[in-house]
C-alpha cells in the first residue's frame, strides 16, 4: 500500500491521472493508480434518478442512505427530491431491493412535497424484511417541524407512521440498532427551543420509536446555542457516542467552537445518559477533542457554489467500541476556505490524537462522512473543490490513516449547473460499512461523461454518453442538474 499526501497539490495530479485512467478503462474497472496496493476492484456508482423521471432537472442535493442490516439488498436513500407529480403529495425516498443496482422513487415520507432535512436508518428489531425504516424529517413551512417516523415496508404505498413531532429543531440525524429484537433509535439534533442555550440534543427511543426522550448533551455555557450538527454513533455492545460543535462565540460569520464528544455505555438507558466521558480540564461531561477552533459560517455560496458551516462526523469500530473517529471542518490554514480534520481515540474517547491523523487534513473540502468496517478498516468520504471541480473521494485505511487507499468516485465541473438553492451538494453525505463493502451516497453534476466517474457509472435515467447528453422519455435533451449517486466500494481486506 502506498501512502498519499492528503493536500490538494498532491491529490490533483493523482486526480487527473485517475480520471484519464478511468476514461480509458470504463465502467467497473479500477484505474492503475487505484490498483496499487490492493485497491478496490469492483467499485460501483449508480445515478439514483429512475428511468421514468428522465426529464427531471431538480437539484436533488443532500443525500442520505439507510441499509437494512439483515437484508442489505434493501436500501433507502433520500435527497432534496420533490414529489415528482404533485405539490400536495408526499415527499419521496429512493428504494432499492437489489443492493443498489436499481432504484425506485416512493412517496412515503410524512412531509408534503419535499423535506428540508431528512436522515434515516434501518434496524431489524421488529423483523420486518423491508423495514423498519426510522426517519427524521423536517418540514419547513411557517415553522420547522420535526417528524420522527417509521415504515415497516418501504416498498408499500403506506405513508410513514409519525411517532413523535416537535418544532424548532434543526438537522435531525438518525442512527438505529437492534438490541434484543427492539430497535434503539438515536436522533442527534439541534434543539433551538432550549432556553438554556445548551441546544445539542439526542432524542433517544429504546422501544422502536413508540416513545422518545430528549437529552441535552451540552454541559457548558454556549454563546446562546450550539452548532447545527449533532451526530450519534452506535456500537453493537450498546456504547453510544455523539459529537457536536459547542459554540462558545459567534459573530454571524465565524463560530469559535469546541468539538465535543459524549459517550454512554448502556445505550442511553440509564438516568445519567451521555455523561460517561468527562473532560479533565473542567470535569464536566463531554470530552473536548479540540478547543476554540474557528468555523466559518456562510449561508451563501462560499466553497464553490456550496455553503459551509457545520460538517461533522463520528464513527465507532463495531467490534471494538474503544476505537472511535471524529472528523470536522474549520478554517484550518491560511488561504483555505474550509479544512477537514480527522482525529482518533483508542480508549473510548478519553484521550485523542493530538493532531490530525496522517492524510486527513484536507483543504477546501466538505461533507465529511466516516465509517468503520467489521475488520477495523476506517473509511473517510469527502468532497473537495480542486481545480474548478468537485472531486468525491472515499479513503480507506487499516492503520488509522498512516497509510491510505484513495478511490475517486467522481470529478465533475463545479461551476455547473448553477445552484437552485442551498445547499448545492448538501450539508452532508453519508458512508456506512456493510459487511465487506463501504456503501454511501453523494451528490454531483449529472453530466453523462464517463471521464467524470473514474470507477465507472450506471445511469438509470436516459443518458447518451457519446454526446454527453441527458434525454427525456421522448428523446428530447434535458438540462444537467445535481443528482444523488449511490456507491459501493469493497473494504480493504
Amino acid at each position, binding site marked *: 500500500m502506498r501512502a498519499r499526501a492528503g493536500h490538494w497539490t498532491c491529490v490533483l495530479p493523482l486526480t487527473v491521472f485517475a480520471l484519464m485512467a478511468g476514461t480509458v478503462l470504463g465502467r467497473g474497472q479500477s484505474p492503475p493508480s487505484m490498483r496499487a496496493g490492493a485497491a478496490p476492484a469492483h467499485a460501483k456508482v449508480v445515478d439514483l434518478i429512475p428511468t421514468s423521471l428522465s426529464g427531471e432537472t431538480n437539484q436533488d442535493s443532500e443525500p442520505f442512505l439507510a441499509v437494512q442490516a439483515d437484508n442489505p439488498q434493501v436500501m433507502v436513500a433520500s435527497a432534496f427530491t420533490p414529489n*415528482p*407529480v404533485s405539490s400536495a403529495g408526499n415527499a419521496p425516498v429512493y428504494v432499492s431491493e437489489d443492493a443498489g443496482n436499481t432504484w425506485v422513487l416512493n412517496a412515503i415520507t410524512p412531509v408534503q412535497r419535499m423535506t428540508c432535512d431528512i436522515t434515516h436508518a434501518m434496524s431489524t428489531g421488529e423483523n420486518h424484511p423491508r423495514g423498519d425504516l426510522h426517519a427524521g424529517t423536517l418540514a419547513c413551512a411557517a415553522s420547522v417541524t420535526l417528524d420522527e417516523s417509521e415504515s415497516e415496508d418501504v416498498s408499500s404505498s403506506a405513508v410513514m407512521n409519525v411517532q413523535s413531532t416537535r418544532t424548532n429543531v434543526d438537522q435531525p440525524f438518525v442512527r438505529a440498532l437492534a438490541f434484543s429484537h427492539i430497535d434503539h433509535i438515536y436522533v442527534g439534533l439541534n434543539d433551538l427551543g432550549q432556553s438554556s442555550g445548551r441546544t445539542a440534543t439526542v432524542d433517544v427511543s429504546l422501544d422502536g420509536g413508540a416513545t422518545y426522550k430528549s437529552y441535552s448533551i451540552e454541559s457548558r455555557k454556549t454563546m*446562546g446555542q450550539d452548532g447545527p450538527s449533532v451526530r450519534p454513533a452506535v456500537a453493537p455492545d450498546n456504547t453510544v457516542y455523539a459529537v457536536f460543535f459547542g459554540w462558545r462565540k459567534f459573530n454571524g460569520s465565524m463560530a469559535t467552537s469546541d468539538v465535543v464528544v459524549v459517550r454512554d455505555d448502556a445505550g442511553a438507558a440509564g438516568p445519567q445518559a451521555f455523561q460517561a466521558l468527562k473532560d479533565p480540564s473542567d470535569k464536566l461531561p463531554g470530552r473536548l477533542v479540540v478547543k476554540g477552533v474557528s468555523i466559518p459560517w456562510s449561508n451563501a455560496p462560499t466553497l464553490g457554489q456550496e*455553503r459551509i458551516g457545520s460538517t461533522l462526523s463520528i464513527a465507532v469500530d463495531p467490534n471494538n467500541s474503544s476505537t472511535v473517529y471524529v472528523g470536522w471542518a474549520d478554517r484550518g490554514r491560511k488561504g483555505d476556505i474550509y479544512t477537514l480534520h480527522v482525529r482518533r481515540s483508542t480508549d473510548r474517547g478519553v484521550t485523542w490524537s493530538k493532531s490530525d491523523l496522517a492524510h486527513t487534513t484536507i483543504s477546501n473540502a466538505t461533507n465529511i462522512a466516516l465509517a468503520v468496517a467489521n475488520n477495523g478498516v476506517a473509511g473517510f468520504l469527502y468532497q473537495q473543490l480542486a481545480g474548478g471541480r468537485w472531486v468525491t473521494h472515499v479513503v480507506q485505511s487499516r492503520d488509522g490513516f498512516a497509510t491510505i487507499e484513495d478511490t475517486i468516485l467522481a470529478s465533475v465541473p463545479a461551476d455547473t449547473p448553477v445552484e437552485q438553492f442551498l445547499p448545492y451538494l448538501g450539508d452532508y453525505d453519508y458512508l456506512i460499512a456493510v459487511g465487506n463493502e463501504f456503501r454511501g451516497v453523494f451528490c454531483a453534476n449529472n453530466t453523462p461523461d464517463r471521464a467524470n466517474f473514474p470507477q465507472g457509472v450506471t445511469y438509470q435515467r436516459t443518458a447518451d454518453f457519446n454526446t454527453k447528453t441527458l434525454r427525456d422519455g421522448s428523446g428530447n435533451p434535458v438540462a444537467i442538474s445535481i443528482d444523488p449517486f449511490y456507491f459501493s466500494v469493497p473494504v480493504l481486506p
Partner: protein
Amino acid sequence: MNTSKFFLAGILWMSPLAAGALPQATDNQADLFKQSSIIFAGTVRQVAATSFAGVPKSAQTIVVRVDSVLKKPTAVSLKNGDDVTVEVKDPAAFQDGTQATFYADGWIFGSGVAVKELGHEIGPSGATSGATGTAEKTFGQLQQEISDQDLQRRVAAADYVVVGRVTDVHQWTIPKSVAARYRTSEHSANWHEAVLQIQSILKGPKIKRNKMIVRFPQSRDVAWVNAPKFEKEQQGIFILQKDQVSGEATASLGGYTVDAYTCLKPGDWLPMTDEARVRSLLKK
C-alpha cells in the same frame, strides 16, 4: 404539465350523460382533472400484476397499456405504448382488455410508472370522439377555471390584496427585546423588509400613509427557495397575510409602529398583467 386537447373530448363522450346533466358532470370532471397528476386512456393487459420491479403486486394492481396520455408532469416519462401499473380502487371493475381513462396520482417511479387511481371512466380512448372541437374550447375554459379557483381561494384568505411598488428593501433589524428568540440555523430566513408604496387597495381597509412593510426571507436555503423575493422598484399585485411567521408581528415604518405583512407562497406576488383578472375574481 402536458395535457391533451383530447382530454375533454374523452370525458365528454365517456360519460353516458343526458345533455341536461352535463354541467354537473363537467364540474365533477374538473375536480377530478385538478386532483389528478396523471391522466391517460389505456387498455388493461393484466389484472393482479405489476409492470416493473419495485412495485408490490396485489389484487388491486393492474397493468394498463397506454393508448393516449392526457395529462402528466413534464419530468415524467410516459408515452403511448408504455405499460403502467395502476393501483385501482375496485379490481372487480377491470378485466383483460378493458378500455378506460384513468385519473391518477403518481405512486412509484422506477423503470416504469406506477399510479394510484383517483377515478376512471370505462370506454375506449376519447381521442376518437367526434366531440373534439367542443372539447378543445371547453378544455381551455376548464384550465382557466381551475387556475381562477386557486387564485380566488388565495385572495379570499388574504388580509390585503394591493397593487404597489417596492420603494426600499433592507435587512430586518431584530428588536433587542425579542432577539433571544432568534437562533442560527442553515434554515434561518434572513428576514428582509420591503417598503411598499400602495397604488391601490383591491382588498382590505385603508392604510395610513399608503405604505406597508412586507417581510420576506432573503435566504436561498431550501426551506425558503420558493418564497417570493423583492427588489427595489418591483411592481405588482401583492397578496398579503399579517406576519405570523417571522416571530414579530409589527415593524417600524417612518418612526411609526405598523403591522408587518408576509407574501410567502409562490403566486402571492403577481405581475401587473394579472390586475384585471384579480379585480374580476374579487367581485365574484
